[in-house]
């Protein structure tokens, strides 16, 4: 009898054992180590040397590249995420109609997002926006004037060209918006139209509030992804020109895997984690004011 009880209480562990092992060894222990390493000097070759708050002190007082990386990443997230979500919402609204060919357009618009994170596309972008690339050639074709600028190598435009690349990949939030739009009951619009509401009023009083939980979900996901941007920064511009595209994760990579300053890289990672947590918490806090959950029946 006792044995049976034991089985009832712990039998499930047989199934979730892989997850527990993975969580402990691949997330929890590394996380504790991350915090420990951030207080050490560690070059992989020797043992970690306790360094107290030296790494953090250096990050916050004497590291120009940290400031540059923070600036690049903030600008990137704060500009590309809203633009991407607006593009996604507009295209989703365009496709949320009963017309022929919607499925084909949806597929076509989604293609850039399937391949967007790959090295091949980053290489393509680098060449597309180079001095002799197709972008300049197109401008010449339309205006007759050949801009003598490499968009990815000029400090003024390099980050902008990467933001454009991010906005270009609006496909995933578009699909999520599209599914959300389909879930808004048609009767709401009918009722509003009977009461004399025009299309704009319908959009701002029905569509936006009903979509707000989905906008919120997309915002959180895209924001976290934005903070973790790496491939584009390394392959398209390699952090240059003049650190104008030095994404935070790229800087962590340079410190950890090019200069083998594991302690310093760990401190940077800890700081990034805190930043992401603060942003996420802030987003959740602000969501009370603008995210509308129908089931609660209140704003």
């Amino acid at each position, binding site marked *: 009898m006792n044995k049976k009880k034991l089985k009832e209480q*712990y039998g499930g562990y047989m199934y979730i054992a892989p*997850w527990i092992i*993975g969580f402990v060894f*691949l997330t929890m222990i*590394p996380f504790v180590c991350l915090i420990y390493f951030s207080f050490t000097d560690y070059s992989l070759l020797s043992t970690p040397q306790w360094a107290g708050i030296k790494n953090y002190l250096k990050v916050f007082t004497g590291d120009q590249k940290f400031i540059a990386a923070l600036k690049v990443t903030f600008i990137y997230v704060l500009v590309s995420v809203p633009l991407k979500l607006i593009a996604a919402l507009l295209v989703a609204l365009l496709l949320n109609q009963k017309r022929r060919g919607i499925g084909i357009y949806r597929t076509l618009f989604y293609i850039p997002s399937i391949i967007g994170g790959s090295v*091949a596309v980053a290489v*393509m972008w680098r060449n597309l926006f180079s001095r002799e690339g197709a972008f300049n050639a197109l401008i010449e074709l339309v205006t007759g004037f050949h801009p003598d600028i490499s968009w990815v190598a000029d400090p003024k435009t390099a980050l902008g060209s990467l933001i454009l690349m991010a906005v270009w990949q609006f496909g995933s939030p578009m699909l999520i918006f599209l599914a959300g739009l389909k879930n808004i009951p048609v009767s709401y619009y009918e009722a509003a139209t009977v009461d004399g509401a025009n299309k704009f009023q319908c959009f701002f009083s029905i569509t936006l509030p009903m979509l707000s939980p989905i906008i919120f979900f997309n915002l959180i996901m895209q924001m976290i992804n934005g903070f973790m941007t790496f491939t584009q920064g390394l392959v398209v511009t390699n952090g240059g020109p003049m650190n104008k595209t030095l994404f935070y994760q790229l800087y962590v990579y340079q410190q950890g895997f090019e200069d083998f300053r594991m302690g310093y890289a760990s401190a940077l990672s800890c700081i990034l*984690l805190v930043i992401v947590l603060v942003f996420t918490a802030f987003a959740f806090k602000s969501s009370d004011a603008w995210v509308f959950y129908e089931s609660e029946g209140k704003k």
Partner: protein
Amino acid sequence: MKRKKRIGSIAFHVVCILFAVTSLYPILWLISSSLKESSQVFVDAANLIPKDFKIENYANGWKGFGGISFSRFFLNTFWVVILSVLGTVIVCPFVAYGFARMNFKFKRFWFLTVMLSLMLPAQVVMVPQYIMFNKFGWVNTYLPLIIPLWFGNAFFIFQHMQFIRSIPGELDEAAYLDGAGSFMVYRKVILPLIKPSIATSVIFQFYWKWDDFFGSLIYLSSPSKYTVSVALRLFSDPTSMTDWGAMFAMGVLTLAPPVLLFFCFQKNIVEGISTNGLKG
């Protein structure tokens, strides 16, 4: 009224087609450049139709670099992808079944760890993970790229759980009455019913692993072990690259598997992103 409708329809298609052409232009340019003479790629760059189709670019690119051809890189990538997908398929439904159907002590706590992993960006623990795998002697092997996937992925566990919860518990009860054990119920009742969810996880895992660049970049050091993403990066190094046509040709080939996958399994992918919030 009818006429107005017609104009609206034409306007809609014009807007959509213009937009599609603009957003697909870079990809068309990539494909066309892969067929151009290398010296022609940046002369008359906006032109999408190559003067003479130079298929040889593909053969030249395939030769790779340093005596290692792209057949090696593709083979390496397929190995990593297949073993990763296998881990995902075997482990995630198993764990999801435990969470969805079993009752055990501290279940809420362990479920919380799944939810936590959904939110936290995994890249943050890259440095200590690297140090750990380095201690194991796993650097410059595929183990750090594959083994973590054999312990379950929070996204897929959560997705399978949702799926299992929609299966009526009476089916389990009936099997238990017939004398089946919990594993038998898993194998005979649950597994066949969550096939669609498993299919989605296969597609997404393939797709993420194929695109994975950061993992391959830090763990693989000898070129003969490279996966296509790191190989392509080295192959396209702007300081040494001159054969542009060949470089673009290899770019096109590395994009082919995920694009093909998308066209074959569009329904699963669209559903995975729009209803389960998987990262596309």
